[in-house]
C-alpha cells in the first residue's frame, strides 16, 4: 500500500541480487557454514514470530518486522551485532509502521520473557537500548519503511479482494455472485408472473424469450460494472483450500530470503503454484472431482461471458494456462519456487516436527538443530571479538572448528 509498488522504495532499493546477498554475508560465513547461517535465519524469524504473537501483533506487522530484520543484515553481520536487540527494535518499528504501535516498555518486557524461554541470555531489558537500536535500524534501512507483502497480491490473483485499495465494498467474485443471485430471483418472479397470465402451455418458448431478450441489458450492465474496475483479465475462482494453503506457505516464506530477492507478486504466484501442487498431491484419488473443484482453475461463467462479449480471448481453463497468462518470467518464477521449497527439508532437520522419531536418536555429527542456535550466535560473536583483537589469527581457521563450549 501507500504508493504503487513500482515507484516504491521496496522496488527501487530493496530487491537485491543473489551475489549481493552472498557478499553481504561473507563475514558471517567465516564463522558459520552456509547451512548454519540459513538455519539462523529460520531461528531469528521464529523468534520474531513468537515475540510478535506475545505482543498481540497481527501477521502483517510481524511480516514487516521480519523483512526489516533481513534488510538490516544486508548491511550488518550477525557476528558483530546483538541480533536479539535488533529483533526487539524491528518489532517495535514494524508495529508503528503498520499503525498498531506498542509501547517500548512492553516490547522490552515481553522480549525478555520470550528470549528467556528460549534460553537467550544476551538480551538486557533496557528501553534505552532498544530505543537506540531503533535509530540505527532506521538509519541502516535508509529510512525506507514501507514493505509490500504477497498476501494482498495473492488475494487479488485469486479474486478474493479488490486490488483497488478498498474502493469497493465487495470483491469481484462476491459482487458478481450477488448480482447473479438477484437476477435469478428476478427472473423467477418474472416467470411466475408470466406463468399465471399465459398458462403453462407456452412455458418453454417463453423462457427462451426471457433469457434471450429482457435480461441482456443487465448482462451488459454487469460487464460495464466489472470492467469499470479497470481489470480486463480473466476472473479466477480458486478453491478456498488452495488459498488457505497458500496463506500458510506465505507465512513460511518469511524464513527465507525470497523477500529480498523477488517482488511480492512473483512470490505470491510461486506460492500459488506450490499450493496447487500440494492439493494435487494430497488428492491422488478422485482426480475427476479435484479437477473440477480445485486443481483445475474454474472460471466464473460470467468471466467467460464478459470476455466473449468484449471480443477478448476466453479466460484460461487450466492451471498451466492460468500461469502462462501472467506476463512473468517463468525461470524467475521457478527460481523463486525453488527458494521456497528448499526451506522445508532444512527446517525439518533444524526443528524436527516429529520429536518422537527414534530415527533422530543417532544424532548426526554435522546436524544443527534449534538447540544449538543460541550457542552458535554466541560463538560467532566471541570468535569475531578474538579475530578483531588478534588480527593475525586467520579467522578462516575458526570457520570449520566444531569446538563446543560447555
Amino acid at each position, binding site marked *: 500500500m*501507500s*504508493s*504503487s509498488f513500482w515507484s516504491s522504495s521496496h522496488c527501487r532499493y530493496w530487491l537485491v541480487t543473489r551475489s549481493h546477498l552472498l557478499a553481504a554475508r561473507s563475514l558471517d560465513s567465516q564463522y558459520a557454514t552456509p547451512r548454519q547461517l540459513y538455519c539462523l535465519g529460520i531461528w531469528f524469524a521464529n523468534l520474531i514470530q513468537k515475540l510478535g504473537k506475545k505482543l498481540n501483533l497481527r501477521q502483517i506487522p510481524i511480516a514487516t518486522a521480519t523483512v526489516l530484520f533481513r534488510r538490516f543484515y544486508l*548491511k550488518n553481520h550477525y557476528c558483530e551485532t546483538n541480533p536479539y536487540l535488533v529483533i526487539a527494535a524491528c518489532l517495535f518499528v514494524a508495529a508503528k509502521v503498520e499503525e498498531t504501535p506498542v509501547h*517500548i516498555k512492553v516490547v522490552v518486557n515481553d522480549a525478555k520473557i520470550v528470549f528467556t524461554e528460549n534460553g537467550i541470555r544476551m538480551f538486557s531489558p533496557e528501553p*534505552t537500548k532498544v*530505543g537506540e537500536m531503533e535509530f540505527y535500524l532506521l538509519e541502516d534501512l535508509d529510512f525506507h519503511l514501507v514493505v509490500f507483502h504477497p498476501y494482498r497480491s495473492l488475494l487479488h490473483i485469486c479474486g478474493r479482494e479488490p486490488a483497488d485499495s478498498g474502493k469497493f465494498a465487495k470483491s469481484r467474485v462476491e459482487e458478481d455472485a450477488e448480482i447473479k443471485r438477484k437476477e435469478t430471483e428476478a427472473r423467477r418472479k418474472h416467470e411466475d408472473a408470466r406463468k399465471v397470465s399465459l398458462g403453462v402451455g407456452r412455458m418453454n418458448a417463453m423462457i427462451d424469450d426471457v433469457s434471450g431478450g429482457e435480461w441482456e441489458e443487465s448482462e451488459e450492465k454487469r460487464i460495464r460494472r466489472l470492467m469499470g474496475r479497470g481489470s480486463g483479465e480473466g476472473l479466477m475462482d480458486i478453491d478456498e483450500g488452495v488459498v488457505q494453503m497458500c496463506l500458510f506457505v506465505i507465512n513460511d516464506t518469511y524464513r527465507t530470503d525470497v523477500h529480498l530477492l523477488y517482488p511480492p507478486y512473483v512470490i505470491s504466484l510461486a506460492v500459488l503454484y506450490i499450493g496447487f501442487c500440494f492439493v494435487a498431491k494430497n488428492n491422488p484419488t478422485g482426480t475427476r472431482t479435484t479437477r473440477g473443484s480445485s486443481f483445475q482453475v474454474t472460471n466464473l461463467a460470467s468471466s467467460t461471458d464478459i470476455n466473449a462479449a468484449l471480443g477478448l480471448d476466453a479466460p484460461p481453463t487450466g492451471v498451466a494456462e492460468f500461469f502462462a497468462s501472467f506476463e512473468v518470467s517463468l525461470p524467475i518464477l521457478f527460481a523463486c519456487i525453488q527458494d521456497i521449497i528448499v526451506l522445508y527439508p532444512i527446517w525439518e532437520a533444524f526443528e524436527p516436527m516429529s520429536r518422537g522419531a527414534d530415527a533422530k536418536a543417532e544424532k548426526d555429527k554435522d546436524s544443527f538443530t534449534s538447540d544449538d542456535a543460541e550457542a552458535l550466535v554466541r560463538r560467532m560473536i566471541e570468535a569475531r571479538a578474538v579475530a578483531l583483537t588478534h588480527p593475525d589469527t586467520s579467522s578462516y581457521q575458526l570457520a570449520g572448528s566444531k569446538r563446543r563450549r560447555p
Partner: protein
Amino acid sequence: MDLAAEENKRRADRWIKGIKVGEGTFANVYKGTEKVTGRQVAIKKIKIGEMKDGLDMTALREVKFLQELRHPNIIELCDVFSVKQNINLVLEFLDTDLEAIIRDKDLIIQQADVKSWMLMTLRGLEYLHRNGVLHRDLKPNNLLISADGLTKIADFGLAREFGDPGQRMTCQVITRWYRPPELLWGSRHYSSSVDMWSVGTICVELVWRAPFLPGETDLDQLKRTFEMMGTPTDDEWPGHKELPDYHPTAMHPKQPWWTIIAPLGAEGVECVREMLKYDPKARLTAEQALQHRFFSVLPRPTAPRLLPKPKAELRPRALAPDEFTGKPRVENGNSMKRKAESPAVEPSDGKRVARRLFV
C-alpha cells in the same frame, strides 16, 4: 568506517545547514542549501535523542510516506541523513503557505486564484488517495506554496494507509475546524471523504478570508456546522444516527449559507457544496472534483507563478499549540519547547549503546 556510516556521511555532506526558521513539538526546521547546486532546502531536524520512548509516531509517519510519494503537488523529500542521535529530513524549501495568503488582507484573491489553488491541492490529494493514503490533517497551514507559486501538500504526521476493510481507525484526527461531522461523531471506519471535507472548508476560507467553522470545542464544532448548514436529516445522510458518538442536536433549518461563496460562480458553489455533503458516501471524491465543471468553465485558473503572494516572506512557521488547533494530544503530553536550541541532551559517545558490539 563501515559502508552504512560512510553512505550517511556522504549524504550529510551534501547539505549546509543555515538559520532556524521554525519549530514544533518534535522537530526544528532550518533553512539550508545544497552545496553543489546552491538550491535552497528546508532541513527538519527530528529530536530523537530526547525521546525516551523511541521515535514519535508523527515523525515516523512523515518519513515513511514522504519516502514513497513523489508528485508536483506534494512536498518533496530530497534526502534523509542522521547526525549523532538526530534524524534530518531534507525537504524542498517552500517560503509561504496558504494561511499566510488568507491572513494577508493586502492581497486580493480572485475566483481564478481560488480555482488554481484548489486545482493544485486536489491534484496532490487525488494522487494520495489513488495510492491509498489518507492525509488526515489538511488545513491552510499545511498547504505550502513554492517560490514559483505551486501548492504543495505537507505535514504527513497524521497520514495513514486505508483500504484494509474492517480495520478501526482513530477519529481524533484533522484539525477541528476542518474536521467532518462523521469524525466528530466518532466514526471509526472512514475513508478519503474526510480529506474532501477539509478541502471544502479550506475553499470557503479562501473566499471568506476567515475560518469557515471555527469551533472552540468538538461539541461547538458540530453546533457551528449545523447552525451554518442545517442539521442533517435521515434522507440527506442515511445512517448517521448509528455513529458511535451520535447525540441528538438542536434542529437548525437549512439556509443558503453558500451565498458567502457566491464569488466562485454557480459552478464553484456547486463544487464546494458537493465537497461539503454530510453523507461521506455522497461527497465528491478528489477524482470527481477534478472533473467538475468548475475547473473547465471560464475564468481559467491563474497560472501558478502569477498567483498573489504575501510580501513578508519567510514567516517562521510556528506550529500552533495543540489544544488550540484541536490536534490530538501527543501521548506524553510534553508541551512544546520554546527554547532556542537544545544541544544539552546529546549524549556523549562513550555512553551510547554501540550499533555494533565492537567499534
